[in-house]
């Protein structure tokens, strides 16, 4: 009888501890773990990640990218977070990964349907833009497409330099 009651009290103590832990977790992370908050991730990303690298590292050719799956993206975010020497919570890391997946990688999300602004389009003629669109559409795979894009960017950077103007990165609009 007594033993049983002790057992029960121990059990209720444990339950209380679990509840307290859950409460603390809830306090330190307002967003539940499963509902990653991309907006929060964006803010974290812009504050802590862009101090060392630009957003264009996410636009690398898939063939040269370290990140080819969603798990790889999470691993890479955690690895980089460690380099900042700041402490990130699990929720922080998940939110950053969620933001990057939505904004760039789109694993399991399908295409955005968004159009891309042609890099340096303001320095090109209508015929040149049309030819560039044709080249991209005609690329047999992602690697060939990346090649077309890289060559295009390089050519337009040179053109901007010759004309004494500057293009913004990564969009490639004229800086005024």
């Amino acid at each position: 009888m007594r033993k049983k009651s002790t057992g029960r009290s121990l059990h209720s103590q444990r339950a209380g501890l679990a509840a307290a832990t859950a409460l603390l977790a809830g306090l330190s992370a307002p967003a539940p773990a499963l509902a990653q908050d991309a907006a929060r991730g964006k803010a974290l990303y812009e504050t802590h990640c862009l101090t060392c690298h630009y957003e264009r590292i996410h636009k690398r050719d898939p063939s040269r990218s370290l990140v080819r799956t969603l798990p790889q993206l999470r691993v890479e975010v955690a690895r980089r977070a460690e380099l900042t020497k700041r402490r990130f919570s699990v929720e922080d890391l998940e939110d950053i990964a969620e933001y990057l997946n939505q904004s760039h990688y789109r694993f399991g999300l399908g295409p955005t349907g968004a159009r891309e602004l042609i890099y340096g389009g303001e320095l090109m003629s209508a015929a040149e833009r049309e030819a560039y669109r044709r080249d991209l559409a005609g690329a047999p795979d992602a690697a060939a497409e990346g090649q077309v894009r890289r060559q295009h960017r390089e050519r337009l950077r040179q053109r901007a330099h010759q004309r004494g103007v500057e293009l913004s990165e990564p969009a490639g609009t004229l800086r005024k």
Partner: protein
Amino acid sequence: MRPAVVALAGVLLAAGPHVQAAGDAAKGEKLHASCLQCHGTEVYVPPKRKVKTLAALRKETARWGDHYNPAFSKAEIDDLVAYLNRDFYKFP
């Protein structure tokens, strides 16, 4: 013959602005997401407005529309113009 030509011209002139306003603003608002990658809507309400007519708005929208891959179609430009005019420019 001549009155017929004049009448036809009259019909075309009357149809002109109507065709421009034929875009779907709701569709245009969705298409507009591509524009927001680079700028916010503040560019539509500058302190000193350069775009002063619906025709100028259409021209400017079409100019940028051709800087995209894929390029915006004529119908999509109409939709964008309808959205921009409804929410920002408000030309008659």
